[in-house]
């Protein structure tokens, strides 16, 4: 077991969004979370990553034997949590690889390792960029500066590949991707999975799950997981929408 979320309640600006959520994810498992707009998927993702605007009002989250909620966002990141943002921000003037190098070294430092050698870093980064079919010109451009929607998403996965997290939360990384990019992204995720990284995939579309076979699929509605199943649940949702499941949950 890598992460265990127990009875989680989260409020934003005094409004409760997550209302008693339970979820356990094992090492190397891929869990997909689906659910209607506004159901709280991104809220869950931001909360796990430690965004200060999200108040945890009750519940516990255990991550790799630690109390996750005790850690600040950067500590969580260094402990191995990665969030692929639904809306990655632009940081002008800071090159993509500059930030990555700083991030990588911050992790190494926390792990008591020396800074990465510059040459080795470049080799490593270029290899990962090639894997993600990311043109090298993106390495030296400002972080997400002027990137297209799809390029931003691909850049998130590229960063994940470089940072090699233990647990990756990917918030609608598939939205806005063309078919080729979708395959590339899926390929990147599968590679992580082979390296024993656990993944929480937030998505609206069954399509992604054709390329990344999830171990579990959960439906999040109104701040709770109302149903869990295997990959067939995604197919069912694709065919019937949420109405039936929502009605069943209410009943």
């Amino acid at each position, binding site marked *: 077991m890598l992460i265990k979320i127990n009875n989680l309640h989260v409020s934003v600006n005094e409004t409760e969004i997550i209302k008693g959520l339970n979820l356990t994810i094992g090492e190397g498992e891929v869990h997909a979370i689906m659910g209607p707009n506004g159901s709280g998927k991104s809220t869950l993702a931001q909360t796990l*990553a*430690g*965004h*200060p*605007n999200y108040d945890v009002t009750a519940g516990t989250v255990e991550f790799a034997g630690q109390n996750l909620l005790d850690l*600040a*966002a*950067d500590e969580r*990141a*260094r402990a191995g949590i*990665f*969030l692929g*943002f639904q809306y*990655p*921000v632009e*940081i*002008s*003037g*800071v090159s993509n690889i*500059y*930030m*990555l190098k*700083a*991030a*990588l070294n*911050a*992790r190494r430092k*926390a792990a008591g390792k020396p800074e990465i050698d510059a040459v080795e870093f470049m080799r490593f980064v270029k290899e990962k960029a090639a894997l993600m079919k990311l043109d090298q010109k993106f390495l030296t451009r*400002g*972080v997400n500066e002027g990137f297209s929607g799809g390029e931003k998403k691909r850049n998130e996965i590229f*960063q994940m590949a470089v*940072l090699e997290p233990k647990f990756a939360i990917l918030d609608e990384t598939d939205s806005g991707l063309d078919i080729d990019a979708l395959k590339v992204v899926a390929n990147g995720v599968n590679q992580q999975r082979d390296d024993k990284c656990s993944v929480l995939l937030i998505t609206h579309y069954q399509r992604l799950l054709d390329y990344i076979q999830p171990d579990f699929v959960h439906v999040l509605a109104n701040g709770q997981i109302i149903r869990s199943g295997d990959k067939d649940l995604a197919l069912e949702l694709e065919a019937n929408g949420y109405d039936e499941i929502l009605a069943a949950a209410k009943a």
Partner: protein
Amino acid sequence: MSSKQTDVKDLIERKYEHGFITDIETDTVPPGLDEDVIRLISRKKGEPQFMLDWRLKSFKHWQTMSKPNWAKLNIAPINYQDISYFSAPKRPEDGPQSLDEVDPKLLETYEKLGIPLHERARLAGVAVDAVFDSVSVTTTFKGKLAEAGVIFCPFSEAVINHPELIERYLGTVVPYRDNFFAALNSAVFSDGSFVYIPKGVRCPMELSTYFRINAANTGQFERTLIIADEGSHVSYLEGCTAPMRDENQLHAAVVELVAEQDAEIKYSTVQNWYPGDEEGRGGIYNFVTKRGDCRGDRSKVSWTQVEAGSAITWKYPSCILRGNGSIGEFYSVAVTNNLQQADTGTKMVHIGKNTKSTIISKGISAGRAQNTYRGLVKIFPTADNARNYTQCDSLLMGNQCGAHTFPYMEIKNPNAVVEHEATTSKIADDQLFYCQQRGLSEEDAVNMIVNGFCKEVFRELPMEFAVEAQALMNVSLEGAVG
């Protein structure tokens, strides 16, 4: 306020109350300013008559002027009679005798800035052993420069050894009548640097390297004159990233640059005078007049500044683009934190044909600081095909600080092309969170974002200073977020 102005005038006109005694033997003149003080300064320095005459003219003119009020600055009144206008260099035994006696906070800052150990002592005012290894380095530099025919010496030495150059160029770029502080400086300036690059010579080194080893304590009324003769080239760096201690609150420097035909002068400044404490007490007032005269055709003057220190900064390094095809550039980062105030910018005056200017200004405010960009682009009717590009970006940290932009334009030639872009942004919480999510601490995240913001300016700095400037930014903004 007019009442304030009369106060100043009263003070200026009032004789030193306790009677002024001219004692040539003492090394420090009592506070106060009148013609006798100026005569004394000039005599102590062994100056030729023309220099004294010029100082006196400047003083007379200064007495008719009043302090400028147009800047967006809140300046406590300065009593010009409380200042001592001449003091001999401090004797080593007056300062701390070892680093153990120096404020640990200051040492901590040096550490963070990566200042080499042997330099820390000098900066902190510790008496440094005379045989410390830069002496031989200095001699090597001197030899190299002399070989190239470059003159580089303290201003006061140039007055004695090269009076013809001083007489020919002094005050031709910044006349003593130019403004209140320039007039004061012209009357009482202590020392500074003089540079002359002969025709066709490319100065064999960054003058910074040399300067950093030698020029401590240049004083509060510094005067610098750099002349680049036809086809020559020089890069000069003033200042230091380390916070300089100075008991003098008022600094009023003048810098004049002359670029003859096809000559190029690159002047970089890193200013980090004491900014005062968190309540703004005790910081330096930095009122500087800097101007470059592109006299010859195709000449170029490029200013790069990183302004991080001082309680108040009032400074507009400018270019007079007289020569046809001449080029002026201004790259600036001004950072203000706590109660610091900066009113800075540039003037680009296009007179010659096909003249070009570029202005890149980056203002960063944090705490309760106020940061103003003030720039003038002036295109004369004679300046056919003049071009200007101006970009002013402001970055705000927190919501108690202010950023202001005053771009003035006077365009008298219809075929000029003048472009202006301005942005104001905040370090967004989402940007910080994004960086933190990747594993950076909040402090590192802020530093990274700020340095990214300043990049276009930092890359104009000589290499080793770009690195120091980044470190300086980080130290200046410490605690600005969170």
